[in-house]
């Protein structure tokens, strides 16, 4: 009977064992869960971030707790980081937990998967010795052969403490390298200030340099250098700094001003016009008064000379007065056309053209005379032409004299001249010395005889001719022609008529 019971009992154990074994072997990969691994502390300027990786084979939701101990504080109990309890993240900020910077801390991550609690390995960390310092804030300014590097230390995440408060002194290294990486200049020094500057000199001008600064402590050589900043060494060209061109412009204008002042003082530049000298002031007025023409009655007088023919001429020598009506057809009137002003020093030449001023009855005679004298008057014409530039000095200046054409003879004025009022003379001499025309008749004739061969222009009047009271209506005398051509005889020459 016992043997019958033992048989089934053993069979049950066998089944149980096999079932257990099978179960155990069937769940090997699924049940082995590893604790969190690869704990890493990433610390910068006393800001600590712990990160980890989940253990392998973790498929179910896992929660993590971060535990730490400050070993230097005689503690032996794990503390849980408050912000990182029951977290699903794979990182934790332990800045507040690691508040004693000189302590050595240890951290551990505990994973809770279902009911399984697994502890990671311990990560030891001493902030004072292991936190990364930097990067500092760098500002560059360039000068011709140097660079001014201004460095500002980064702030720490420790409350109320700066890097200088913790370390008191920091070593810094400025690395200056040329853009093509050929030159590298490390400059090492130490500082006790949060912000400091350093001038890197002895550089090539107009060259591109790149600067990087790193800070470190004597017991902490972990540093993060600043990013490369590049600058070109040249003088300041900032907009507000163009002082030098302004100064140059001011200097140039000052030099020019001094130069101009020197010229003015030296008399080379006259700002005022020279005042009229006092001595000449009255002359100025006189000039005006002298040149002011008196409002005198000026008449255009034309004295026309005509070469006389014997037969046609006849005169009475004793009669001064002349009347128009007496010898109406027999006398010609002589009109002085003018004289050449250029030769007034040499001669006072009166060139005249004769015109017949007969009455209407004898107008035909006048034309005959004119035509017949045309040949004779050629010479005169030529002489007259020579003196084309005649200006009327003694007579009305405005009237023009055209002595070249005989056709104008008809346009010339006919009038009577009272010989008592006619004076002959040199206009250069004063008008006081004057003699009437009649009294010099004989002299004029003598002159004519003696100078028959003389040229027209060379004869000079010694007598003055003064037309004081030009009486335009009574012209009774013919004036004497100073000289005639060679052909003219004494008898044929002009004579003075009454």
């Amino acid at each position: 009977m016992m043997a019958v019971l033992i048989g089934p009992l053993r069979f049950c154990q066998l089944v149980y064992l096999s079932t257990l074994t099978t179960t155990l072997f069937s769940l090997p990969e699924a049940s082995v869960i590893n604790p969190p691994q690869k704990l890493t502390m990433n610390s910068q300027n006393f800001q600590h971030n712990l990160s980890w990786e989940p253990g392998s084979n973790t498929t179910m939701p896992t929660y993590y707790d971060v535990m730490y101990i400050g070993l230097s504080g005689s503690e032996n109990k794990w503390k849980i980081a408050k912000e990182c309890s029951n977290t699903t993240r794979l990182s934790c900020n332990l800045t507040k937990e690691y508040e004693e910077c000189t302590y050595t801390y240890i951290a551990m991550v505990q994973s809770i998967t279902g009911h399984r609690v697994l502890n990671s390995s311990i990560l030891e960390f001493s902030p004072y010795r292991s936190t990364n310092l930097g990067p500092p804030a760098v500002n560059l300014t360039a000068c011709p052969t140097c660079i001014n590097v201004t460095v500002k230390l980064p702030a720490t995440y420790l409350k109320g403490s700066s890097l200088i408060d913790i370390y008191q002194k920091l070593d810094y290294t400025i690395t200056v390298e040329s853009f093509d990486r050929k030159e590298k200049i490390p400059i090492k020094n130490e500082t006790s200030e949060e912000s400091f500057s350093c001038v890197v000199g002895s550089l090539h001008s107009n060259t591109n340099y790149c600067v990087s600064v790193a800070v470190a402590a004597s017991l902490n050589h972990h540093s993060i250098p600043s990013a490369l900043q590049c600058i070109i060494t040249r003088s300041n060209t900032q907009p507000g700094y163009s002082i030098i061109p302004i100064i140059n412009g001011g200097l140039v204008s000052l030099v020019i001003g001094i130069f101009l002042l020197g010229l003015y003082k030296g008399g080379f530049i006259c700002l005022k016009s020279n005042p009229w000298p006092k001595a000449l002031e009255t002359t100025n007025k006189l000039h005006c008064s002298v040149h002011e023409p008196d409002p005198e009655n000026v008449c255009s007088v034309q004295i026309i000379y005509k070469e006389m023919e014997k037969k046609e001429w006849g005169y009475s020598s004793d009669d001064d007065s002349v009347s128009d009506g007496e010898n109406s057809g027999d006398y010609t009137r002589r009109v002085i056309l003018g004289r050449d002003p250029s030769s007034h020093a040499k001669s006072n030449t009166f060139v005249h053209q004769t015109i017949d001023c007969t009455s209407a009855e004898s107008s035909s005679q006048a034309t005959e005379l004119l035509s017949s004298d045309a040949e004779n008057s050629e010479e005169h014409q030529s002489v007259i032409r020579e003196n084309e530039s005649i200006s009327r000095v003694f007579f009305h200046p405005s009237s023009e004299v055209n002595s070249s054409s005989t056709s104008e003879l008809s346009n010339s004025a006919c009038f009577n001249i009272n010989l008592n009022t006619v004076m002959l003379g040199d206009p250069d001499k004063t008008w006081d010395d004057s003699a009437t025309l009649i009294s010099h008749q004989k002299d004029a004739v003598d002159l004519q005889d003696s100078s028959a061969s003389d040229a027209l222009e060379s004869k000079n009047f010694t007598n003055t001719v003064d037309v004081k009271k030009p009486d335009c209506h009574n012209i009774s005398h013919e004036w004497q022609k100073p000289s005639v051509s060679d052909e003219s005889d004494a008898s044929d020459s002009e004579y003075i008529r009454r």
Partner: protein
Amino acid sequence: MSGNFPSQCINERAAFKPTQNVVELSVSQKENAKVAIQEILQEIFNIFSKNLTQSAWDGTSIVRFQSGLYQQIQRLEACLRTQMEKELTNPESEDLQLTTQRVKKYFQGIDAFLKENQYSLCAWEIVRVEIPRCFVLIDKLTRRLSN
């Protein structure tokens, strides 16, 4: 010599209670700072000359550490002898005696802890964690010398 503190040694940590916070040890005079530094370096050297067989550190690292310490101690002693001859330092000053006493007490406590734990691994690890704080103090005192 930094490493991972063994988790099994955490419980033993509570047994170690240093006499003071060594970092906060202050020295009044500049000349006394040199003496203090020299004292500290000497004590550390003495500590790390003891039985290190159970520690997890390799022999090369220990020797390097010891020789570095020794060099610094020799230089400092020469400097101090000059200072003593010039009578810049009064060995009888209270402040100097106080500082020296404090340093000695501190290291006597460490030595006692090591002895109690038979220079075990965990004991050495705990000491290893504490000694760097002495160097923080030395660093602080050195800066006072240059001021």
